[in-house]
């Protein structure tokens, strides 16, 4: 067990997952002396009937829902956050529940900052003034798909992100009534993002044991349930296991420095309006091929997590790291029909790759050189092997 | 006596010049009190307009025809049609 010379680890979120998990929310809220949460969710979810199930979970409880703010669509804007904060103050709520994924949770976190710090200017925290104290209790209930960023300590509002340990949700509720996905693309997108985050965390160079533990269990569930989840998105138990994987991958990711795949995918998504998941699916194989090409060691733990004890023990020691890479590629191959393989199929213009690589390496704080980013992008563009 | 309602008509594109209205303020327009249930055509004739077909009439964002009924507090803009672009 390699222990780095120095590492820090924090997971502020409490995870409760399983049958009747949502019914525990009133009790958890009592633990915070909060009885009137504001619910932030998306228009699509409230129309899909999942919100009715969510409200049903509060039967026979002392909790009154201060208001269901369901105007969030697929973009977290400051306008939405201000409206929700106004509703929060108006109703005198004392905690926030975000039902849904990416944008809903971002708006909820933004509202949390606005109401806890009693301010209207959100962006001064993005430009330097640090968050000082604990915010209001924030509960996240993911539904059908996941953007991989719900449980992290990062909030992205208006394309700007802020990371602080006070931004972790206090409670993550994974309930089998909410997790089944509606479409296979939804599952494909979420599993690829979780896979990229988990593999990134597993192969990060500071490999602290805590990060490895979270990444291990996330990869375990992905290995076991990903292929089945793609075939049957509505299957209850598989979707619950996959949602556990998304949560654990996100927690591992928020403690490890952001991997190259994540940075490149976010920049590409910004430049081309195509979702980051699709780029992660393309870039992940090439990043690993690039690491093998530069003789960087891919740790055996990756294969152990994906294959399980028996298969790991059975394969001889020297080709376990290669087997790990093959296992990742096999899992991604399951996305045959749903996601394009190269950036050329996505018609990403080639001339934009230059400044994307520059922006990504700048955001990585020079951990990844611009040349490396550029080579990975070029290979991924044409689909050329190393 | 039929109950009276007040209606406001705004003239644009030089129509107020043709009707020779003095000190006409385009933002407030001309307010008329007419018996309720009367149609736009009657109100325009009352205001002195003669040829109706060559103008476009709008009420709260929707185009209306000359024989649509008027209600209390309606605001009708009357102007020459144009194509846009």
């Amino acid at each position, binding site marked *: 067990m390699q222990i780095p010379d120095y590492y820090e680890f924090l997971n502020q979120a409490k995870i409760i997952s399983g049958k009747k998990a949502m019914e525990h929310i*009133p*009790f958890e809220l*009592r633990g915070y002396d909060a009885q009137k949460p504001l619910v932030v969710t998306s228009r699509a979810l409230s129309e899909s009937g999942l919100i009715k199930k969510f*409200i049903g*979970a509060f*039967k*026979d*409880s002392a909790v009154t829902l201060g208001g269901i*703010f369901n105007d969030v669509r697929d973009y977290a804007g400051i306008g939405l956050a201000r409206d929700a904060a106004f509703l929060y103050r*108006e109703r005198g709520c004392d905690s926030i529940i975000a039902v849904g994924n990416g944008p809903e949770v971002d708006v909820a976190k933004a509202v949390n900052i606005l109401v806890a710090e009693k301010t209207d200017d959100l962006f001064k925290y993005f430009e330097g003034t640090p968050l000082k104290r604990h915010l209001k209790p924030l509960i996240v209930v993911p539904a059908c798909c996941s953007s991989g960023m719900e449980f992290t300590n990062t909030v992205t509002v208006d394309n700007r992100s802020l990371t602080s340990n006070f931004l972790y949700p206090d409670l993550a509720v994974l309930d089998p009534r909410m997790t089944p996905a509606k479409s296979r693309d939804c599952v494909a997108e979420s599993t690829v993002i979780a896979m990229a985050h988990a593999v990134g965390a597993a192969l990060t160079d500071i490999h602290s044991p805590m990060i490895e533990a979270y990444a291990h269990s996330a990869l375990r569930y992905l290995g076991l349930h990903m292929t089945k989840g793609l075939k049957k998105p509505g299957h209850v138990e598989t979707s619950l296991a996959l949602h556990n994987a998304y949560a654990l991958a996100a927690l591992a990711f928020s403690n490890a420095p952001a991997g190259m795949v994540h940075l490149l995918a976010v920049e590409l998504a910004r430049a081309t309006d195509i979702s980051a998941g699709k780029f992660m699916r393309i870039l992940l194989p090439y990043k690993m091929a690039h690491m093998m090409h530069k003789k960087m060691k891919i740790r055996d733990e990756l294969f152990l997590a994906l294959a399980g004890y028996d298969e790991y023990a059975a394969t001889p020691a020297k080709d376990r790291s290669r087997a790990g890479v093959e296992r990742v590629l096999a899992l991604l191959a399951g996305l045959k029909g749903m996601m394009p393989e190269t950036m050329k199929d996505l018609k990403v213009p080639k001339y934009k790759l230059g400044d994307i690589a520059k922006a990504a390496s700048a955001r990585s704080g020079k951990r990844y050189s611009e040349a490396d980013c550029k080579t990975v992008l070029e290979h991924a563009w044409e689909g050329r092997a190393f | 006596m039929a109950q009276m309602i007040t209606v406001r008509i705004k003239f644009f594109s030089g129509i107020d010049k043709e009707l020779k209205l003095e000190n006409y303020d385009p933002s407030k327009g001309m307010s008329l009190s007419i018996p309720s249930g009367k149609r736009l055509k009657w109100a325009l004739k009352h205001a002195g307009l003669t040829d109706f077909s060559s103008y476009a009439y709008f009420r709260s964002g929707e185009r209306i025809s000359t024989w649509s009924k008027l209600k209390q507090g309606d605001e009708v803009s009357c102007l020459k049609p144009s194509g846009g672009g």
Partner: protein
Amino acid sequence: MNINNYPEIKAGKDFISKIYVAIMLWIVGRAIQAASRVDKEVKKEFAEFPADFMMCMSILPFGPHMVVGKDKNGKVKYMGWNPQGKKITLTMNIKSMAAAMQVFTFQESTTTAFAHDRFTVDGDIVQGLAVVRVLNIVEVYLLPKIITKLAVKRYPKWSEMSPLRKWVGRIIIYVRAFTF
């Protein structure tokens, strides 16, 4: 941004499960009282409890309750459904109505419910465990084997509870529980 298109929502009540759980609590309460007279193990458990022992099992936040305790002359009695006015020494709360339904429809055994944090116990832990053992025994008496086998970690072997004693006890408990 007009706030009345986001109305405040009070989730209301689930009457069926509330009534079902109330009845089950009543039955279990009465069964404990009956068992404490019939079964020697239950008697032994209750013997060690202090004189002012008063247990209340209730569903948070204001669900049905079951109060069982020792009356003046030390006999275990089902004290009804209202905990007000009684000095409770041990409270066993079930966190939500749904959790109670899981337990009382035997989808989850009492011990798995504990493991899944459906219960919170306030007061002396030793008494709490004794009550759990009593509940297991009462369940063995009240319900047929196929159900209880799921609900209990280890169904009492012939050696511990002979079939004769079990059936006799079962009949007496049913009679005592349902006759006032």
